[in-house]
């Protein structure tokens, strides 16, 4: 049976090294570019007619735009307008990576902690920079929930700081783990189908069960792909809200 972890292997197609940095073109980088290209084609192509009454494609594009715009407006408020292009790009990139990753044989960009953590760390640092830039040292009151009795401050503040600092970890691991687990499960059951089919006879007939399971699991994984992109984007909005509005 094929190793279910093989699908996550990064293979260097064209080794490149610039100024001591390994910038090799790998299957991961190729799939990142595929994601960028396909999502750009989807979003720009849908608007090619700029129709007043949108067709199906244009409706999907407008729906994506309004979905993210509403998400930012509801979670960050009007102060979040400046970050809308970033949240939109982030959501579309992760959605594209999650969904294209489901194509059999594809590499899932978001199944790598390096990628998801890079996003989470960027957001974490961005929140700190925006928070201090907007509120100065008052940003530190984020760790003091209003109405906390003074006696508890010694306990609450370190907890708040810890919970704040673990954000990039939970933020990135949630996406990475969901993608990795789903793909491993698909691969394991795919392996069962092949092994049972190869065994022949009664066992081949039993192979129908993992096949049915895999079909259902593929549908579930498609749902997970969309939901996890949404979760990642909405958490980004929630964290941005802290920086922009200093709310608890």
């Amino acid at each position: 049976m094929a190793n279910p972890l093989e699908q996550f292997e990064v293979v260097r197609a064209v080794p490149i090294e610039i100024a001591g940095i390994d910038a090799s073109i790998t299957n991961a980088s190729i799939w990142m570019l595929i994601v960028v290209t396909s999502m750009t084609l989807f979003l720009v192509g849908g608007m090619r007619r700029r129709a007043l009454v949108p067709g199906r494609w244009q409706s999907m594009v407008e729906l994506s735009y309004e979905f993210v715009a509403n998400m930012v407006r509801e979670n960050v408020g009007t102060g979040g307008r400046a970050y809308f292009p970033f949240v939109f790009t982030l959501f579309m990139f992760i959605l594209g990576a999650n969904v294209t990753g489901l194509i059999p044989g594809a590499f899932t960009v978001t199944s790598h902690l390096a990628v998801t953590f890079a996003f989470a760390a960027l957001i974490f640092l961005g929140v700190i920079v925006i928070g201090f830039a907007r509120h100065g040292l008052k940003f530190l009151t984020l760790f003091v929930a209003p109405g906390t009795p003074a006696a508890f401050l010694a306990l609450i503040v370190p907890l708040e700081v810890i919970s704040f600092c673990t954000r990039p970890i939970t933020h990135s691991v949630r996406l990475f783990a969901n993608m990795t687990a789903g793909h491993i499960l698909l691969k394991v059951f795919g392996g069962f189908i092949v092994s049972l089919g190869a065994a022949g006879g009664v066992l081949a007939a039993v192979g129908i069960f993992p096949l049915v399971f895999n079909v259902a699991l593929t549908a579930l994984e498609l749902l997970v792909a969309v939901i996890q992109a949404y979760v990642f984007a909405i958490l980004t909005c929630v964290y941005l809200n802290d920086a922009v509005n200093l709310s608890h």
Partner: protein
Amino acid sequence: MPQFDPNVIEPQLVWLVISFGLFYFLMARLALPRISGVLQERVERVADDLDQAEVLKRESDEVREAREATLAEARAAAARKVAEATARARADAEASLAALDAKLAQETATATARIAEEQAAARREIDRVAAEGCREIVKKLVGEAVAASVTHKAVEDAVASLRRGEA
């Protein structure tokens, strides 16, 4: 797990920066302005159309009111004319009926008078013929002429008694 292989982190990060940077640029400069432009245009267009519809509605309301006023006026004028014509026609008809009535009454009166006259004349003639006959008969029977006034009186008496018997 291949995810925890430190060798593959660097190229992934490099290409993530490149591809995400490119994607951000494409979104911020190309896709998003286009989408928001179309959405904005639609909002404006819908607002414009609603305004225009409001103006047109007001205009059509005015036109309808004017039309209704004209119609009511025309209807009133028509009703007035019909009433006048009816009254005139009725007066004419009554006048000519009265004239006809009068003429008929006069003709009836004339005719009645003439009938009465003719009747009287006829009766007188009958009386005279009867008296004449009576005188002839008397002359033949008696052989002597009787005065016409006598026979005339006898005939008249006889006729009168006959009439009484009839009545």
